[in-house]
């Protein structure tokens, strides 16, 4: 039988089920564990953490997790690949090395770190050199908000991670690696796929897309037959069983909960998908209309037929910037006339804010329990609606008007419509909005700056 490698998904986002990575390592055979920690604005949260404490700026959960699983990984020869480094890859690497030493794994654990995706130190000079980093959505040049930029990172492909694996890294820590590369870098390394083997790389991207959201590919958040998906309390995260020819099986450990069928995997394939004929990554453009799915036994789906095209000459850049403030407040109204009471309270609140001269960029009122998810498609409320949550959300360029709102909400309890509750959480908090600015940049500006370091514990 030809060689297969098993690449397990352990985290779908920073804050995912903490028990999942250890379960992947302990409850059955795997060769690689991939952990995805980064969403669009995660980098800016990490940037803020580092500005308060220079030793922070990465996914902190990752370190105790490694302390827990490194002995097993070492004994079973499992390698870990994670974009946990955030904007302080060095500190994350050092913390993991310290965990390895604590576990007496000197000489057994080698940590690779991938540097060079962080563009913050270079932003001024990039713009000066004519890289305007225009917003992909509205075309504005980044110079329009430059003084408010909190983080800027280029999405990088699998190349540096593959290098680290070739240099013997047993753990690879990256910054803004694409989520999908965390899964197909091991395939490139193990099978010796060439960087222009477009179909195989595209298959790897599909595998990565299936793995990158954790249990969303194994029964979590699955709409199809959701009522009888077994034992989600003990959901098994997905595992890709990859073959050299680019075909692979999606499966999970025996004895775990959840479900993997053609329909469940199809839902994940459609997740956050744009034009399916061009799923653009730094390494290849994958055509998702070529994916073939077959049920191949109990909790096994076979994926094959994937086609790809050459990569593009630009990389995506993920930028976060400060863009005003927002606040959200809620109150709950009970039967009778629940919705009418909530609507009346909303009107009174707006009138009071108006009289104070508080100005907002936007105010949005929703009635949770009636129309907050589906809007007018929810139809009219029930005549005997038992209860409803009034939810008022506001946005402004300054904090002051939002602080006025925060003070005006609770008084409604004694000065507005009756049978109201749900205010015990205190005043609404005024939060800074960290907005997302997607842009493109020539890959030739980024790739020469990428650097791999492998250090033994």
């Amino acid at each position, binding site marked *: 039988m030809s060689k297969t490698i098993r690449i397990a998904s352990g985290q779908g986002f920073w804050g995912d089920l903490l028990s999942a990575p250890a379960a992947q390592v302990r409850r059955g055979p795997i060769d690689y564990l991939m952990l995805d920690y980064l969403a*669009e*604005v995660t980098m800016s949260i990490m940037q803020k953490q580092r500005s308060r404490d220079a030793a922070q700026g990465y996914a902190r959960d990752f370190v105790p997790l490694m302390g827990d699983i490194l002995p097993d990984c070492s004994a079973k020869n499992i390698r870990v690949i994670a974009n946990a480094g955030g904007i302080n890859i060095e500190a994350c690497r050092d913390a993991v090395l310290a965990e390895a030493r604590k576990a007496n794994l000197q000489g057994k654990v080698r940590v690779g770190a991938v540097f060079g995706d962080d563009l913050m130190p270079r932003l001024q000079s990039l713009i000066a050199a004519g890289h305007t980093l225009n917003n992909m*959505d509205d075309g504005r040049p980044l110079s329009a908000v430059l003084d408010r930029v909190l983080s800027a990172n280029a999405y990088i492909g699998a190349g540096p991670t593959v290098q680290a694996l070739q240099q013997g890294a047993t753990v690879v820590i990256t910054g803004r690696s694409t989520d999908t590369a965390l899964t197909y870098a091991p395939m490139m390394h193990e099978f010796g796929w060439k960087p222009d083997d477009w179909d195989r790389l595209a298959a790897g991207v599909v595998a990565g897309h299936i793995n990158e959201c954790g249990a969303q590919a194994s029964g979590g*958040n699955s*709409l*199809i037959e959701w009522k009888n998906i077994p034992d989600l309390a003990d959901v098994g995260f997905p595992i890709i069983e990859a073959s050299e020819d680019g075909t692979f099986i999606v499966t999970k450990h025996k004895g775990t909960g959840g479900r993997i069928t053609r*329909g469940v995997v*199809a*839902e*994940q*394939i*459609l*997740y*956050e*998908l*744009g*034009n*399916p*004929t061009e799923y653009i990554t730094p390494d290849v453009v994958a055509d*998702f*209309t*070529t*994916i*073939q*799915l077959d049920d191949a036994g109990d909790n096994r789906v076979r994926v094959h*037929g994937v086609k790809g095209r050459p990569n593009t000459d630009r990389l995506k850049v993920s930028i976060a910037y400060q*863009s005003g403030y*927002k606040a*959200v407040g809620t109150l709950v109204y009970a039967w009778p006339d629940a919705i009418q009471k909530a609507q009346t309270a909303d009107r009174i609140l707006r009138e009071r804010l108006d009289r104070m001269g508080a100005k907002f960029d*936007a*105010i*949005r009122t*929703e009635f*949770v329990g009636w129309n*907050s*998810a*589906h*809007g*007018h*498609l929810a139809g009219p409320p029930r005549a005997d609606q038992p209860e409803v949550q009034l*939810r008022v*959300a*506001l*946005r402004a360029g300054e904090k002051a008007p939002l602080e006025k709102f925060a003070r005006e909400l609770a008084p409604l309890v004694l000065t507005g419509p009756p049978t109201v509750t749900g205010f015990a959480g205190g005043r609404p908090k005024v939060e800074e*909005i*960290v*907005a*997302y600015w*997607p842009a493109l940049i020539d890959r030739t500006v980024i790739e020469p700056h990428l650097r791999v370091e492998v250090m033994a514990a």
Partner: protein
Amino acid sequence: MRRVQLYRAAHGRSGDKGDTVNVGVIARNADLYPILVEQVTVERVRAHFGDLVKGKVERFEMPNVWALNFLLHGALDGGGTVSLMTDAQGKTFSTALLRMEIDVPADLVNLLHAPA
């Protein structure tokens, strides 16, 4: 012909990219896919969502997975962290679309899921 909610013929998932929602609508059976292609059109989807979608609606066909992928532009009040919506990431747009009604030929009615 039987008029039913799309939910009975399809399942799906939705997500966000900035201010755009993508809704994947997946036929519950290969034989139901041509009905989706024919009836779940850009025009009908735009009319279904009405002012919930401010920008254009795009549709992509994926016969390989029996699916249609819709992009609903300008549907998230600016999107992500800027949005004031409870569903700022468009997670519930999937079933909002599955509320739409379609006509299913009598010989395919046995393939339908129970009503929601």
